[in-house]
């Protein structure tokens, strides 16, 4: 089962306020586990926000973004019924994405 991801998309006029919650350890590679071993670098590198399939925001982030990242964006020209899709790719090649219909 993929880790949950959640989008909240609230329409204000023709702009959507988007908040996305992501489950990800965002390990910096500096933390040690119980046995004193370094936990390897594991973090989301790229995030794409799409409106009705078209990319509107592309982001590159580092391991310095907090664990279980939460982002807020604003997308113009949206209307009720439009589809918002957010996806991420991490440094291990894992991906996740979720969709929300703008209400």
């Amino acid at each position, binding site marked *: 089962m993929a880790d949950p991801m959640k989008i909240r998309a609230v329409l204000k006029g023709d*702009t959507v306020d988007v908040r996305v919650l992501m489950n990800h350890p965002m390990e*910096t590679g500096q933390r040690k586990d119980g046995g004193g071993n370094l936990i390897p670098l594991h973090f989301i*590198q*790229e995030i794409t*926000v799409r*409106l009705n399939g*078209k*990319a*509107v*925001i*592309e*982001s*590159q*982030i*580092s*391991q*310095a*973004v*907090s*664990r279980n*990242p*939460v*982002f*807020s*964006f*604003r*997308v*113009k*020209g*949206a209307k009720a019924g439009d589809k918002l899709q957010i996806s991420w*790719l991490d*440094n291990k*090649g894992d991906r996740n994405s979720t969709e929300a219909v703008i209400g």
Partner: protein
Amino acid sequence: MNQSRRKVLQRAGTAGALAAAGVLRPQDLLAAGWNKDAFSAKTLADALKNIGAAGAGDSKDIVIEAPQIAENGAVVPVEVTSNLPDTKSIVVLVEKNPFPLVAKFDFLEGATPFVKVNVKMGESSNVRVLAEAGGKYYSAVKEVKVTIGGCGG
């Protein structure tokens, strides 16, 4: 970011095909869009240089909303609005982090130049934000003090 590489990726299709064709090295496969040099830079100056923003002038049209005091450096909320016309991207850096570059957001058609992100800060530092508008980079800064609260429990 290497523009010719991106063009190759867009034309070629699957990552597997690209690897087989010898165009991508294994470690490039999935991070082709991620600016490794900029994210690995250990000083603010190097990070700025790597994203092409060295010498960015200050601008009051970049608004940073962040707490002056963070109870813990693991999560520091930073909200940025750029009122510069034609803002194409926003970049967030934490000057005293081991690797200052934290995030870059590119706004394609339809996105407002606004973002809120939670960043990790190793110690009290300036949070530096850049906005790319009209082909130039502009800068703003806000100091955030990182404290530790509580009894460790």
